[in-house]
């Protein structure tokens, strides 16, 4: 779909909702120049441009995937604004972007610092063991933010209840596999 042709913002959002990852590339390429100019003028490097822009288009992907999402500005303006905010946040913190910031902001304040990298890599490894359907159901729900109706539609389940049941079974299966191989002290489980 995404060649040299111009697409309306609505068309791009539709493609995101349909799970077409080419939309990510399209947004990345369309916003590279302005984001690059902004970050390079504000003490950043090309590596920072790449990191921030990837995070920005993925954030747009997550937001636009949800049916409740309404675009109130041009999509490119939206991407640029997110990238700008991410970079300012990073400058203020004086450290690299941490993908876990988002989940921490949604979790209990009493969460203890953990060795995230090891935990995340292990979960990712075991997620692969579950097979494509389970991996997709869990990722579409927990990362892309799709509701059960959208997941059922995307993965050809009969209805939202089936999708919800499948999601629960997959999560429990993943938890069980991790518990089998790791003690609570090894893995915070």
């Amino acid at each position, binding site marked *: 779909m995404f060649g040299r042709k111009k697409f309306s913002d609505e068309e791009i959002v539709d493609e995101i909702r349909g799970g077409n990852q080419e939309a990510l*590339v399209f947004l990345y390429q369309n916003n590279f120049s302005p984001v690059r100019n902004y970050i390079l003028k504000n003490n950043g490097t*090309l590596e920072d441009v790449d990191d921030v822009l990837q995070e920005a*288009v993925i954030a747009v992907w997550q937001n636009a995937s949800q049916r409740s999402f309404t675009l109130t500005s041009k999509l490119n303006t939206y991407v640029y604004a997110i990238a700008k905010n991410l970079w300012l946040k990073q400058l203020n913190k004086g450290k690299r972007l941490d993908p876990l910031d*988002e989940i921490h902001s949604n979790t209990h304040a009493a969460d203890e610092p953990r060795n995230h990298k090891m935990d*995340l890599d292990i979960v990712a490894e075991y997620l692969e063991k579950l097979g494509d359907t389970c991996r997709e159901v869990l990722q579409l*729900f927990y990362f892309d933010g799709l509701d059960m109706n959208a997941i059922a539609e995307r993965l050809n389940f009969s209805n939202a209840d089936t999708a919800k049941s499948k999601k629960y079974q997959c*999560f429990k299966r993943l*938890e069980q596999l991790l518990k089998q191989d790791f003690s609570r002290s090894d893995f*915070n489980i």
Partner: protein
Amino acid sequence: MNFEENNMHEAFDRYVTGQMSEGEKAVFLEELDRDPALKAAFDSYINIVAGIRAARRDELKDYIKKNAKIQYIGNVWSRSWVIASAAIVTIFLGAYVVLNYYGTNKATENMVMKDSSGATNDSTVQDITIEHDQVAKNDEREYNGNAQDADPESTEDVTGRPLNTVPYYVMEKTTDRIDIDPTRVADKKITSTKQLDITYEPGDSYMYKYNKTSLVLYKVPAADKKSVYEYNRSAYLSWGKSYYLLKSDGKARELEAIKDSVVLKSLPPVK
């Protein structure tokens, strides 16, 4: 809030996906503080969710990296700049190759004129109005083989024969009607200049041998000013007040002054 197994998982889902109201969220957080078992279950859940999200994020980033063909040169080049620059370089290289090709290979056998005085079928020169001196050279001098008589820039080749280099002008038709180029002749102008080596031999008559890359002149004084013009794949020696066609077969031929007015009008006037 009932946190039995299934309901607990659903409550966790509602919390991490931001579906709880502020009231529900406050109750949920109070329960976590009050119930260590619930807190442990939530920690386990959060770890797994974080791993699922990280895996998906990495997957999407990998896709972008593989498919977004942004190339960097220094810190200011975007893909469009790279493409534009590549196009410019390609155009210049192409022009260089074409000009080089025409310069070295197109001074071939005359395809238009059968001989130095023959008629032409080149219709492009019909509108040329510049009058040209057709008088054959009459100031020819005997070649005395003495380097002191040669052009100051002349040297000698390995056999001791006088050798000098003269300009070789390539002329092409142009559609540019603004006459700002003094070398222009009607609808033609000099598009490139090269150098041609000439060696000189004594002889009984005025002759030449030409093979595209070098020219041998017999009896012609080395000191005389000369130049060569190429137009329409034919090369012409300018010497004195005349032009001479140079056939490029490498054979020794007599120098014959061109008398055809059409041909002469297509070349710069002799001064």
